[in-house]
């Protein structure tokens, strides 16, 4: 073959290779990105005993137009899951088996109500109520449809952060408490301390990568009495994995270690809607930290040999 023909052959071969790697379903524009919808949430529990996974499947995501005293509900999302296979994560109501979860939204995307239903009966209910400035004012938590457990009223500081939360517990006035928050730890500021009566949760990011707080990792400890009257620091680490403006994964890690000592008891976590909808709320990350007082269920502290850390991962799946 002559040289020009060889060159034509090589050039033609390279040109033929220059086809596209972009597929029709790839996201190229912001509009297409906005069209992505949550399709499922995989919940993976990694414990020292075993790993297990459950899936929250979105079975309905529909528009609606329902006027309420708290605004117009324009979106209704219905989800289904088969309960949790392992005991690291559990429901406050103790419900097991196949359940339905639903979430309604106001016209600007703010959550209105989150419910958990078993056999057509509401077992847990969270109601979000907003003020005239669209700021979250109240979160009500019900066990069952009518049994109001907590009525939480938000108080904001001049920076627009939640400085305290006044908790009323109609069924158990002994649980009435004002939960206070402090902020700090970088830019943007995060909740550095939560106090609820004698309970104190303190940010301590030694268990985050590079031993520092950042937007994708935040860690807290609480002191808890253990065997022999020793106090230990129980730690939880919350990590976020962000994609292109979408949240891809939230993991809650149980670091079973304190200053080189290892706590043998593993914590449990109560499922809280913030674990799957915090990105829909203006101060969702702060609320996730504040509501540790509810969803973090630490066990008694004992020292012992090294034990595997445990975690619960919420993996968000999106599709067109």
């Amino acid at each position: 073959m002559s040289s020009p023909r060889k060159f034509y052959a090589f050039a033609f071969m390279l040109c033929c290779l220059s086809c596209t790697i972009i597929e029709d379903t790839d996201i190229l524009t912001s509009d297409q990105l906005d069209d992505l919808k949550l399709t499922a949430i995989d919940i993976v529990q990694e414990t020292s005993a075993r790993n297990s996974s459950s899936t929250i499947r979105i079975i309905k995501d529909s528009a609606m137009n329902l006027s309420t005293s708290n605004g117009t509900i324009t979106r209704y999302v219905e989800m289904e899951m088969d309960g949790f296979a392992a005991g690291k994560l559990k429901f406050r109501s103790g419900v097991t088996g196949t359940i339905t979860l639903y979430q309604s939204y106001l016209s600007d995307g703010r959550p209105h109500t989150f419910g958990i239903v078993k056999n057509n009966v509401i077992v847990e209910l969270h109601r979000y109520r907003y003020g005239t400035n669209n700021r979250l004012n109240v979160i009500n938590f019900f066990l069952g449809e009518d049994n109001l457990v907590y009525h939480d009223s938000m108080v904001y500081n001049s920076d627009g952060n939640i400085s305290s939360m006044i908790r009323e517990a109609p069924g158990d006035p002994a649980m009435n408490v004002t939960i206070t928050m402090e902020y700090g730890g970088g830019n943007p500021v995060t909740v550095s301390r939560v106090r609820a009566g004698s309970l104190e949760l303190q940010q301590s990011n030694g268990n985050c990568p590079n031993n520092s707080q950042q937007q994708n990792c935040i860690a807290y400890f609480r002191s808890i009495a253990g065997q022999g009257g020793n106090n230990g620091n129980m730690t939880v680490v919350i990590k976020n994995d962000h994609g292109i403006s979408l949240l891809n994964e939230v993991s809650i890690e149980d670091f079973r270690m304190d200053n080189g000592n290892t706590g043998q008891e593993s914590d449990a976590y109560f499922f809280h809607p913030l674990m799957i909808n915090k990105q829909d709320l203006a101060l969702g990350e702060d609320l996730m930290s504040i509501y540790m007082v509810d969803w973090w269920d630490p066990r008694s502290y004992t020292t012992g040999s090294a034990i595997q850390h445990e975690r619960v991962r919420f993996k968000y799946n999106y599709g067109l």
Partner: protein
Amino acid sequence: MNVFDLNTIMDYKRTAITIGLLLCFISATAQFRLPSFDIAVKAGFLSMSDDRHTSNGNHYNFTYESITWQAEANLHLGQRLAIGWFYNKKLYGNYHGDSDNDGTAASDRDASHLMYGINLRLSGGRAPKFRPYVQVKYYWLETVVQYPGYRVAADMNGVAAGVGVMLRVSNKLYINLIEGELSMITKNEKVLFADSNLFAQLRAGLTYNFSKRK
């Protein structure tokens, strides 16, 4: 016809036009001189920064890093000038996310790219051993990042300029000792690399010369 079909057709159309122009140019020049060309195979490193401000006010610095391979075919238009076509793809690609506070990894995603285009090379001379060269390119670049359940892509083009040096091993074989290149993005679909204008590559490889001249 949706926008995807239109984009695909436009991709084929522009590739076909480029191939046609290149072949016409090669055919015309071939009438006046002895044809001479080289082919090259190179490996290198590509790094593209992608600063991102998310809708919730956070700022992340993402970086696409890739170990690349590249094939080239260049037609010699004289002793110093050559024009050709190149094709560049990933051997390994990673879209890595940092937060803006301390640079700790937020995420790592599988990612890939495809880059191809026209290359114009000007050699520094016919020195017996080391031959420096400069080159300019017009390129098309596609990048794809894999997320759970979906992929985000960017379709870009632009111009690049670089310098390199070849070591002459024999009459036909050269080693591209080092080749540095800076690329400017002139058009982007604005999801990935929306605020990025420049990226860099480093390469090394082998060039085989099919020249009839000695």
